[in-house]
């Protein structure tokens, strides 16, 4: 005989999951600001586009690190693979931007699936070291394989055709901005769906207690391999977007520096909330841009200082501080 739960308990339980998946005000605010920035800063569209692309890259890392708890020092490998795939395709075969995105996602996802077979067997620092190793290997392959990648000089000569055959990528970056905005927003919606799915809940379970998960009947390796593959594919799209909008690929897209900066951006913005990744990327990109104007040689000092202050000020990064401040103000006003 199965006891039927009280209707109010069922209602409350269902409401919990609806609440967890609901749009938070900082998400809505971010996307409105991002859309409005097109009109407010028409002279900075290239920088804004790059910030949003970095945002997508950081979000892809957040799925791995913030949700599944898998740290990575080599995530740039997948970003770079996506960029080079789209770049080489546009240089040697077809310059259709959407095709480039799909190819970038597929090749980076495939690379992620292969790497996941190594990484999903490991824990903690060992995982970190293997991702670091993968990043370095990819960097040196691209560096050495001059005929394909252009090596140290970067990849040039991409022929990107107009988007949908209609919109030519312009020098001010208007088409690039709108194109990137739409692609990134759609992928953000997919990422949101993923973290609020049973799959996403299983990832949180792995992050919270990897020993318990098999005892529920869940195969940890399968979940992590899927998460790694999806995350890598998403990073690949980000890389492809960068290649297409700048029509040039510098070798540093694969660099250790980029793997580290994406981690920094995630911590700055706030781990495990998705929107923290987008916000962190914008903060980091703008910070870097402004600080390098003030002091071209030592700006990393300030990045380091900001990082320490943000981390010491509690969980949730800039997004967390923002949220706490607003809560504080609301509490003040109500009183």
């Amino acid at each position, binding site marked *: 005989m*199965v*006891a*039927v*739960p*009280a209707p109010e*308990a*069922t209602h*409350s*339980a*269902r409401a*919990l*999951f*609806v609440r*967890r*998946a609901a749009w938070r005000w900082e998400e809505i605010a971010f996307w409105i600001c991002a859309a409005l920035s097109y009109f407010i800063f028409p002279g900075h569209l290239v920088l804004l586009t790059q910030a949003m692309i970095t945002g997508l890259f950081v979000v892809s890392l957040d799925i791995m690190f913030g949700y599944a708890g898998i740290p990575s020092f080599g995530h740039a490998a997948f970003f770079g693979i996506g960029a080079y795939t789209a770049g080489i395709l546009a240089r040697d075969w077809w310059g259709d931007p959407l095709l480039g995105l799909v190819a970038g996602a597929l090749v980076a996802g495939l690379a992620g699936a292969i790497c996941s077979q190594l990484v999903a067997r490991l824990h903690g620092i060992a995982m970190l070291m293997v991702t670091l190793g993968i990043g370095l290997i990819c960097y040196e392959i691209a560096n050495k394989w001059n005929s394909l990648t252009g090596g140290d000089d970067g990849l040039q000569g991409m022929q990107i055709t107009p988007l949908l055959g209609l919109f030519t990528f312009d020098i001010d970056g208007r088409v690039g901005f709108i194109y990137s905005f739409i692609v990134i927003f759609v992928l953000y919606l997919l990422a949101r*769906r*993923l973290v*609020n*799915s*049973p*799959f*996403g*809940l*299983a990832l*949180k*379970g792995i992050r*919270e*207690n990897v*020993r*318990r*998960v*098999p*005892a*529920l*009947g*869940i*195969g*940890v390796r*399968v*979940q992590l391999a*899927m998460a790694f593959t*999806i995350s890598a594919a998403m990073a690949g799209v980000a890389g492809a977007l960068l290649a297409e909008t700048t029509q040039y690929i510098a070798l540093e897209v694969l660099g250790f520096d980029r793997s580290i900066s994406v981690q920094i951006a995630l911590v700055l913005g706030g781990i495990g909330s998705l929107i923290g990744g987008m916000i962190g990327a914008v903060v980091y990109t703008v910070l870097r841009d402004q600080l390098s104007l003030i002091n071209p040689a030592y700006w990393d000092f300030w990045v380091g200082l900001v990082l320490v202050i943000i981390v010491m000020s509690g969980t949730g990064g800039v997004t967390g501080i923002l949220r706490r401040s607003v809560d504080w103000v609301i509490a003040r006003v109500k009183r």
Partner: protein
Amino acid sequence: MSIDVVLETEGLNRSFGALRVTQNVSFRLPRGARYALIGPNGAGKSTFINLLTGVLAPSSGRIRLEGEDVTRAPAQERVRRGLARTFQINTLFPSLSPLEATTLAIAQRHGLCVNPFRRLSGCHAEIDEATELLNRFDFGADAERATHQLAYGRQRLLEIVLALAARPRVLLLDEPAAGVPQHESAEIFGALAALPSDVAVLFIEHDMDVVFRFAERITVLVAGQILCEGTPEEIADHPQVREVYLGDGEDV
């Protein structure tokens, strides 16, 4: 008429180097039984559990679940086939609520955990089942609080709920009442008494109170070997058991 055995081991051995921690253990658990496995510290109880659940692989021997050989099956596969466990030390998801953790276990049973496109908030069947299960254990408002905020006894109870969410045929309870303060133990004992009667339960216990209250039969493990098996009365009167186990300070 043969007994309907749901879990069976045959000549199970496990060594760590030269140390033989499980020696030739053959054990049968009938459907719906209430058995206990006892033994002094270092007797190999934990190793035996780890062998049964697939955390460790045996050096030799066989494990059969519902008549099928699962000796080499990974831990999660055994759970899917009906072998669930609890942990001696709480092994939960600290920042998830019991409702989320239970829903996760049920979603897994329904094969949803590999689906990144399904809305969790739309999984009404799973959420309702989790609510019903938690209600049965009187979780009330605690179901929606973060697990780390719950009283210790509640966390022990959640261990059992998560195991039951997998709809097991066999339930291994690793010291279910370990560390539970006196005033919370009634709740745990109530839960143990109310376990579904078609589920075979094996208590791995230190606490004689639990053993004599719930177990129909007891297996005594000493130095990795089965010393004897019998009803609680037989075990209590067994001279060797008194010597090696009950003799060292345990009050029966």
